[in-house]
């Protein structure tokens, strides 16, 4: 599904290198967790995967289904099945959530050469997905993310993910700011989407989320590199011992 090879990337504006020789492979159907202290480059990695122009790749490659995606822009990557659930979903006043969902779904369909959804079909899909995530349809009439609580924003991200049916989902700290009930709803939403041909990269600070979204692999990101990989057990160790040992071992 995804293969990141010796990736180096820097901030376009000032040239600061953030990702420094990162390697990561995620297989079809795999759930890979990425953990790491604040500032290690987790969000930056998610932005580089989605082609944000604030960052420049200076070395290495990102292969998605065997093809380099470095030449594709953000929207093309999305249409090809890449989805990022934002750590901080962006508020867009003046764009109703429903309208946004419809445009996004149809633009992706168009880019893939599929027919646009009819309005009834669209509504039916949204209603079903919203019900699963306990999202009130009234919320979707509001402007996108505006006035949504922290939990509502995160649920709205998962709603978009289920409607857009991506192949590779990157979840950036989807658990932050969620109470345990909201966390369960979100995790159930993610688990419902798990399938042999859909992969996940779950970025998180805490192992708590990984009790609900059980990962196949765990990777520690530090200073722009994956310094250790392992299975679920690694997350538990990090939880009890902190990052210090892992960082020391890697040095």
């Amino acid at each position, binding site marked *: 599904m995804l293969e990141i090879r010796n990736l180096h990337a820097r901030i376009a504006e000032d040239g600061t290198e953030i990702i420094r020789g990162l390697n990561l492979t995620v297989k079809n159907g795999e759930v890979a967790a990425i953990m790491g202290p604040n500032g290690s480059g987790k969000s930056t990695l998610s932005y580089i995967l989605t082609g944000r122009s604030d960052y420049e790749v200076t070395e290495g490659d990102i292969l998605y289904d065997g093809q380099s995606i470095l030449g594709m*822009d953000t929207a093309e990557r999305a249409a090809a099945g890449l989805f990022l659930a934002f750590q901080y979903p*962006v508020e*867009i006043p003046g764009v109703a959530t429903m309208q*946004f969902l419809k445009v996004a779904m149809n*633009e992706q369909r168009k880019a893939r050469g599929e027919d646009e959804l009819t309005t009834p079909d669209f509504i039916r899909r949204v209603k079903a997905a919203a019900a699963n995530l306990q999202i009130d349809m009234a919320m979707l009439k509001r402007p996108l993310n505006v006035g949504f609580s922290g939990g509502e924003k995160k649920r709205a991200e998962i709603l978009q993910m289920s409607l857009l049916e991506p192949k590779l989902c990157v979840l950036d700290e989807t658990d932050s700011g969620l109470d345990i009930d909201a966390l369960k709803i979100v995790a159930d939403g993610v688990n419902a989407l798990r399938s042999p041909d859909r992969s996940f990269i779950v970025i998180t600070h805490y192992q708590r989320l990984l009790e609900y979204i059980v990962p196949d692999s765990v990777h520690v990101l530090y200073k722009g590199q994956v310094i250790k990989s392992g299975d679920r057990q690694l997350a538990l160790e990090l939880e009890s011992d902190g990052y210090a040992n892992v960082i020391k071992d890697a040095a």
Partner: protein
Amino acid sequence: MNMQSKKPITAAEQLLVDSFVHNLGNLPGDGAVLTIRDSYIEDIKQRGLPTRRVEAWHYTDLRNLLKTVPSIGKSADIEPAERLIAGANVISVVDGHAANIAATGGVTATAYREDLSDGSAAARMALRNSDDLVGRINGAFVTDGVKLQVEDDLVLDNPLEIQVLHGGGQAHTRFPVTIGKGVKGLFVERHISCCEEDALVSSITDLDVGDGADIVWVINQEQGLSDTHLGQINIKLGADAKLLLFVANAGGKLVRQEIHIVASGEGSELTLRGVNLLGGESHTDVTMTLEHIVPNCVSGQIFRNVVLDRAKGVFQGQIKVAQIAQKTDAKMACNTLLLSDFCDFSAKPELEIFADDVQCGHGATVTDIDKNQLFYLKARGIGEKRARSLLVKAFIVEVVEELDNEVLIEALEKQFETWLNNHG
């Protein structure tokens, strides 16, 4: 007048004088009205058009900007435009002449030229002040318009749409409107070009809103790409009156839209919303003055400007709060999206407050499209162009949606969307 300041007359100034001389025979008015007209032309001859040295015209140097003046020309055969709002009653004025003033129950409409002919218009023709160029040009040339009287307590079931149409050349109109006490209704004033020929249009509306009335007044300036539009609305708000004034500029090459409001009755509530869509090489100036002269009034203003190409925009907003106008709550915001490197917008908000127990504020912002919002939309598969256009629309939709009338909102959104698509 200081004789030394007298400058050589410009081509446009000369053309104004000439067209007055040529058309004098066709301008309605009794002796008093004709004397006024004459004095205004004399003013233009003597003082010239305002330059940037005149404070009220500082950002719109009309003497330099107005290059030419089309001749008055004959009335063209013009069909009324399609209604902005289905079901609206339409009153139309074509090329400066009242064409259809069939009134509906409770609304009396008469041709303004009658007031000119019998001289009763003379008092109304007084200038606001010595820099009132719109008043001067309109006073000199005005041919007709519609005088509207809406009887007390009338609730208009259907909107009233005033179409001010022209087919090139010059058109100068005036609309004295008296809204009776307790009236409720929606009024739309549209300025529409029906051809591609250049035009010079001036139009003044005098809107008197009676006590306790609750109305929406929309000014929709949809002039042609080469038109000069000089608009002015003079508003008086009665006690406990509520006015939602929506002013849209989406046309014209050289536009001055003046909005002058006096909150003269206690307890009035003014909501002013503006959308200015500026493209091409146009110059658009919205100048607003608001006077709070009695206590306990509320006013809120938001202007949203989208500027493209080489367009230039101006907003001058002045709020004056008199000493006795305690408990005034007056807010003004002017937000601009600059979408090209060659366009420009100047905002000059001004507060003059003489009362101490008031809440007043203003803010002006100039921004580009928000990068985070753009990235978010693109990350959902929405291409750059579509994403940008969604965000531009969102920027103006926010104020349009406050109109609280689905049909009107939809009509305006459609019009703005078409404009944006044509200028994309």
